[in-house]
């Protein structure tokens, strides 16, 4: 009679703890040398030079085969590498998408030529990718994408607009989801394909979209008769939907979904000091208990990936619970340790401010709360 989704506890082994030591040593040294500034929502923050050093230290693509420059390690090792970077507040945004999903996508569906062309560069921290899924009229309803790809000699011609593309302005490539044949009302998931778009080639204009904090994080890209050569098509023409869905298990359950506001908690602990009041201790204890529980669930999903499973629903649930938790951190912090009506400039207040400003995005990007809960409901057998 169990209906519940289960997350068997997974203990990280000595190999993972050795990896952790390696990553920590690198981060400590790099930070001490003034290499990077700490911050939160680390996957939105970028530093191209940091990504290069990170890649050269061997921390990108560590699960990929050695023949492409990877380390051939497991998802649990990757988990440790990424959680340490995020917990340290390192600016991992530039290489994040390529490491998390573009590389794995090419390994699964790409041609051998594509793997050889792109993977070593990604691993070296020299090729950055972004996700070209959303459009002005296609958000949650991704199957409604309109960007058209028409067949031309030796390739495809793209026309249309992609929107909300994180860090497109610093990326070299986008993997775009496009329509290679008109919508079939009987099966909306047909006729879509994925293509690698070189953002530096002619025919695409990347325009900034400033977020509510006035920052340039995401973008709009307008494609006008943009040419994609055949060798840049990923996988099968027409199989784009299935390929995109396979990316999502990697995208949703990682440590980024539970650590987006971690630095606020760190600064809250610092602010409160070593002799907290009962109320302060309870708030910090509650937030820590949630974090530790979520981490256990997230590691469990990494273990399922390591075992070759495709825990799509389990991952959606971790993202739902995790992102709601991340949004609670600044709300609880301000109640127990009130900032000075927005005027304060202490480290704590700065973190609290950025956490408050990024919070709305956390339950929207990568699948909204409602869409994720819809997936969980399907997993429960309700739809």
């Amino acid at each position: 009679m169990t209906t519940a989704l289960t997350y068997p506890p997974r203990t990280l082994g000595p190999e993972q703890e050795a990896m952790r030591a390696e990553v920590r040593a690198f981060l400590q040294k790099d930070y001490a040398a003034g290499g990077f500034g700490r911050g939160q929502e680390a996957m939105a923050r970028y530093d191209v030079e940091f990504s290069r050093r990170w890649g050269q230290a061997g921390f990108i693509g560590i699960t990929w085969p050695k023949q492409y420059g990877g380390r051939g390690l497991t998802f649990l090792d990757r988990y440790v590498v990424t959680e340490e970077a995020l917990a340290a507040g390192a600016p991992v945004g530039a290489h994040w998408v390529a490491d998390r999903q573009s590389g794995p996508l090419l390994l699964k569906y790409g041609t051998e030529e594509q793997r050889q062309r792109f993977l070593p560069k990604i691993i070296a921290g020299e090729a950055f990718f972004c996700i070209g899924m959303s459009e002005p009229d296609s958000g949650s309803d991704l199957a409604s994408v309109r960007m058209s790809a028409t067949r031309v000699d030796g390739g495809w011609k793209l026309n249309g607009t992609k929107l909300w593309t994180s860090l497109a302005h610093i990326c070299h490539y986008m993997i775009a989801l496009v329509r290679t044949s008109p919508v079939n009302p009987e099966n909306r998931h047909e006729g879509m394909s994925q293509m690698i778009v070189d953002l530096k080639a002619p025919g695409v204009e990347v325009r900034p979209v400033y977020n509510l904090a006035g920052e340039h994080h995401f973008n709009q890209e307008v494609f006008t008769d943009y040419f994609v050569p055949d060798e840049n098509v990923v996988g099968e023409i027409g199989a784009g939907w299935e390929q995109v869905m396979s990316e999502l298990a990697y995208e949703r359950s990682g440590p980024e979904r539970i650590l987006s506001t971690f630095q606020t908690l760190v600064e809250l602990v610092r602010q409160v000091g070593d002799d907290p009041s009962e109320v302060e201790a309870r708030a910090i204890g509650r937030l820590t208990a949630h974090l530790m529980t979520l981490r256990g669930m997230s590691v469990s999903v990494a273990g399922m990936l390591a075992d070759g499973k495709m825990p799509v629903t389990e991952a959606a649930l971790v993202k739902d619970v995790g992102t709601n938790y991340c949004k609670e951190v600044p709300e609880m912090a301000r109640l127990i340790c009130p900032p000075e009506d927005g005027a304060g400039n202490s480290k704590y207040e700065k973190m609290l401010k950025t956490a408050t400003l990024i919070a709305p995005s956390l339950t929207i990007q990568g699948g909204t709360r409602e869409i994720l809960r819809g997936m969980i409901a399907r997993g429960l057998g309700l739809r």
Partner: protein
Amino acid sequence: MNEMRTLILDTAERIFRDICDQALVDKAEKGEWPAGLWQTLEESGLTQASVPEERGGAGGTIGDGLYFLKTASRYVAPLPLAETLIAGVLLAEAGADVPAGPLTIAPVRKGEVIEFSDGKLSGTASRVPFAHGASAIVVATSAGLAIVDPKNVKIDRDKSMAGEPRDTVTFDGASATIVGSVSPDRIWELGALARSVQMAGALEGILAMSVQYVQDRKQFGRTLSKFQAVQQSLAAMAGQVAAASSASDTAIEATEAGDPGVAIAVAKARVGEAAGVAAELAHQAHGAIGFTHEYALHQFTRRLWGWRDEFGGEPYWQAEIGRQVAKAGADNLWKFASRT
């Protein structure tokens, strides 16, 4: 999962499914001891799964006993299974034999002390689960662990909001022998762990009930499960239940590995919170029928509301964790949380 544990859990599942139904729980809450269920479990070696064979148990680990307890709680088995498990573990740790029959433990509340001197006990323990009817009370006294015959103490009966016996036991003048040592917080810690595990089991129970109910019940010409608002709230409930189960399983594994650290505190704090949220959502999904005595949901939710406050509620354990975090310091928060 090893073979022994699979066997334990399969056997338990079968017994509870066959015998532990709503009517049995109802009768137990009215004061009728479910002798048949107890006997079946005891004969199958399940009530002392965690005790070594030479001490009178089935020779399993503490994890075996705790996962059995989780299964039992998916059926809200109205027996002192948690207390018998804890008593057995305490006695085995002290190097003593474990008596047969249902056992309980005392004291279960902070600040209550049972003194031992000259072979006699003094002091009162309140809210002792299932004291009447227990074959022995295992007491953490000021001088060590004692086994006490309930016939030698005064028992004033009371009940929890779930109808589970919570008695006041006056030990004054009762004779006892110390069978070994016990650390002062051991009952409290194992109690918090056991209640976390029980709540996690009951939470899985109410999720399953709710999912089933909304697929059966029709309004506006379709099953409730077709309404997106209902789907969304059951998905939110699934999130709470999954978190609760993960936190309690993690505490079980950490205890089994002999290094629970902060895992029990995390479990009690996190599961207790999930209990409140999920119980609310379960009742909402059921409408009026869930608010009746006739329908079984309350057998689960009343236990959840009761168990979350026993052996320290969320505030107690949250503050405990918070003080440890504060002591470790901001720059060690990550090491603390990742236990590395």
